[in-house]
């Protein structure tokens, strides 16, 4: 149905108020209604279970899946746009001076909403596909994403 004839049929129906009374379509036979689900059950038995066997089997995720936050430390300018926009307050920037700062990420608070990826103008921070992080001690998850201490050549450690 192309857009023009959709618009045309909408105009036509405008008079009738585009409303339809819900009716049962086609009166199934009385006897069949006793065993109505039987064909469905037989079809399901033939098709077999439709459950995913994770964690015993693999689970394929779409590439757009929003998992834990990752960062490309070189691109990070420490501008804290992501920190300001994070709805769950899961990012924190500790800054001593212009180029001595640390960006800390608290995965236990993170809501995996992807706002940091949207807000970052330099494309430094992004969400990976990793979601299997489970621990009884949430504070152990806290990671320092970027640690810059002024010396340009020093390799920033992102543990």
């Amino acid at each position, binding site marked *: 149905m192309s857009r023009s004839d959709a618009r045309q049929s909408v105009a036509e*129906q405008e008079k009738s108020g585009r409303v339809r009374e819900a009716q049962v379509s086609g009166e199934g036979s009385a006897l069949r209604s006793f065993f*109505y689900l039987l064909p469905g059950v037989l079809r399901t038995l033939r098709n077999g279970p439709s459950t995913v066997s994770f964690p015993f089997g693999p689970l394929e995720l779409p590439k757009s899946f929003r998992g834990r936050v990752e960062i490309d430390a070189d691109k990070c300018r420490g501008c804290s746009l992501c920190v300001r926009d994070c*709805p769950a307050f899961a990012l924190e920037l500790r800054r001593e001076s212009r180029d001595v700062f640390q960006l800390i990420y608290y995965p236990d608070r993170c809501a995996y*909403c992807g706002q940091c990826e949207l807000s970052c103008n330099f494309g430094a921070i992004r969400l990976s596909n990793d979601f299997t992080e489970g621990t009884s001690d949430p504070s152990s998850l806290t990671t320092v994403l970027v640690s810059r201490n002024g010396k340009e050549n020093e390799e920033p450690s992102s543990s």
Partner: protein
Amino acid sequence: MRRITIPIGPQHPLLKEPVSFLLDVEGEQVLDSVLRLGYVHRGIERLAQERSYVQIVHLVERVCGICSHVHTTTYCKAVESLMGLEVPERGVYLRALLCELERIHSHMLWLGVLAMNMGFDTVFMYAWRDREIVLDMMEDLSGGRVSHAVNVIGGVRIDLDEEQRKDMLARLAQLEQQVLRAKNVVEHERSLRARTEGIGILTPEQAKQYCVVGPVARASGLDMDLRRDMPHLPYSELDFEVITHDAGDVWARTLVRVLETVESVHLCRQILENLPDGPVSVRAKRRAPEGEAITRTEAPRGEVIYYVRGDGSESPARLKIRTPTLTTLITLPEQLRNVAVADVSVVLSGVDLCIACADR
């Protein structure tokens, strides 16, 4: 007969969210019921006063676990009208696409819950198996099965390339086949009809007095649906019908919701076929000017209304949310009056309660 009080909730196998009904029962008949809300009240309107517009998009998405996209859509429309932004047509179409997909997912989830509370585990399993098709479509589109984080102020952050579009149209055909099968089961299955017909009756007059919205109102004869009554893109250009029924019992609501799911599948197909090209969002400033805005959308359970008042700063002065479940909760004492105790579970799941929505 002795009158006893049966507590349903806050924790009960029947309820998937904490809410408390105290039923006053004599023999098998429910005489009266007292409702207690607030178990999942998170004070979202209070929290919104301490967050910026951008952060509230994700806060508002957590109002309801099932219809999160509708809340962000309504909120973003309110803020966009406050800021005077014009969302490009492609963005509006993609928003509506996800709204309809979410309606299908919400109705199929509800059909499963109703069947489970009726003791019909097979229909519960089939409904939730077929719902996986919609969830996979939404996950491929937005990265999240239920919480999509697709809406940003000024449009949407995702886009659909040609190959994804073809794949979604194919899956939609597969989904339509399953939805039609579910429709036939609901229409002809004898035991399902026996358990839902004639109980939980809400007369059209009561529906009008309690200002009921959504499928519950449509099943009681009120011909109202914001997608048609409030002409806005893209629904003004899409061909669909509002389904009503006038019996007003759980069976009428079941039929209305199932036929609405079929309508939503057709709507999704039309949106995918007529997707205009162009940008999907416009850049939004961080501050909103002084002023107020009210927006309404047709959520799976009915009319959602948002009121936003900006005071020129980065965060709104007031955000008011009214979700549709609140209107059906008021009518429950009416529906539960002199219903058999065994039917309480069917009546409660017939109105598709979303307590997280109601409590906010």
